[in-house]
């Protein structure tokens, strides 16, 4: 298909995707689900079609690419639009695993294992630990003597009795500036994709390595990138020391925190004294 037609289609697809993500963004506790899901599926399927246009391999590879493209993009959309952090982390595991398999399509076996082990194994487990640590039981600080059962929803009433609120928290339920964010992100996406499609990529270079991927990667790391390898090790060491130094610091909660829960969410932290 002609490149300029593809680029116009890319921009149209970006607009469709922008609409889908904008509708799926958490707003007031309830995103508009059915149109968001329908538009999202249409956008992802069209994106898979677009991606296949530039694929020059076997049919089995095409199937794999389609499935992985749908999984990774769909998972990424759910990461950024799901109101609960634990679900976002789990969808991110899906994104990490599908991008690991995507690099397997170009023969990067070591990187496949590395992404699964480091991302899905280490980084996501750390994220889940922190999510569990920082989980709040959102006890609303309504005065117990003046309880008015909220007829519209049970949740404020639940909170005022000290029962942990089971739904998403207020800052999870509302996206901030979804329109501007979606516009910026999808313009970026459309321009990058258009540039990638427009560029005349060279064909396979002659003399591509046919040796084992791990062996070749090891050779390159030690022969050409030895300094970078050592620096990466130093970086990891420094990060470990830094993390321990951060974690040992005793933190005094702000004096105003005991009154924080009386304030509506937009006012938290607003009345902190400067000194």
């Amino acid at each position, binding site marked *: 298909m002609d490149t300029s037609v593809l680029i116009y289609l890319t921009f149209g697809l970006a607009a469709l995707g922008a609409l889908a993500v904008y509708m799926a963004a958490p707003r007031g506790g309830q995103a508009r689900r059915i149109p968001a899901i329908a538009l999202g599926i249409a956008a992802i399927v069209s994106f898979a079609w677009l991606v296949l246009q530039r694929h020059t391999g076997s049919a089995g590879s095409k199937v794999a690419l389609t499935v992985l493209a749908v999984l990774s993009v769909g998972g990424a959309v759910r990461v950024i639009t799901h109101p609960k952090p634990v679900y976002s982390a789990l969808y991110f595991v899906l994104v990490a695993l599908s991008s690991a398999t995507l690099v397997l399509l170009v023969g990067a076996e070591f990187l496949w294992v590395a992404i699964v082990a480091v991302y899905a194994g*280490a980084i996501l487990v750390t994220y889940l630990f922190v999510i569990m640590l920082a989980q709040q039981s959102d006890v609303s600080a309504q005065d117990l003597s003046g309880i008015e059962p909220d007829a519209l929803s049970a949740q404020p009433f639940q909170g005022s009795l000290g029962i942990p609120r089971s739904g998403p928290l207020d800052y999870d339920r509302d996206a901030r500036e979804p329109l501007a964010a979606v516009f910026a992100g999808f313009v970026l996406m459309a321009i990058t994709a258009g540039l990638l499609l427009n560029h005349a990529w060279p064909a396979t270079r002659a003399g591509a390595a046919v040796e084992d991927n791990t062996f070749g990667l090891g050779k390159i790391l030690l022969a050409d990138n030895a300094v970078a390898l050592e620096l990466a090790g130093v970086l990891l060491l420094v990060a470990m020391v830094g993390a321990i130094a951060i974690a040992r610091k005793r933190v005094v909660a702000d004096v105003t925190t005991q009154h924080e829960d009386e304030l509506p969410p937009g006012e938290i932290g607003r009345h902190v004294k400067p000194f």
Partner: protein
Amino acid sequence: MTHAAQPLMLIGAVLFGLGVIGFLMRRNLIIMFLSTEVMFQGVLLNLVGFGAIGGNLQGQAFALFVLVIAAVEAGLGLGIVVMLYRRKGTLDAEAWATLRG
């Protein structure tokens, strides 16, 4: 094996853009960091795609370093997020928006 290089880069571009949207859109500090991890995934795919077109393994070597940096950033960033949470009692990024004029 460049047959999947361009599709890889397209998917990388989309993942990066979605990460940007998630970072700008959400208020929960942990989800903001998770969106930067999605951005890292996009960059990873792009690097491997470029490496596949170049015909050597330099793209994958660089992707390994990106992986190291992502792990480091996740560890330290989450440590800071935990400290911020301890100070304010909330994971809301708007709680730190004290420079209002």
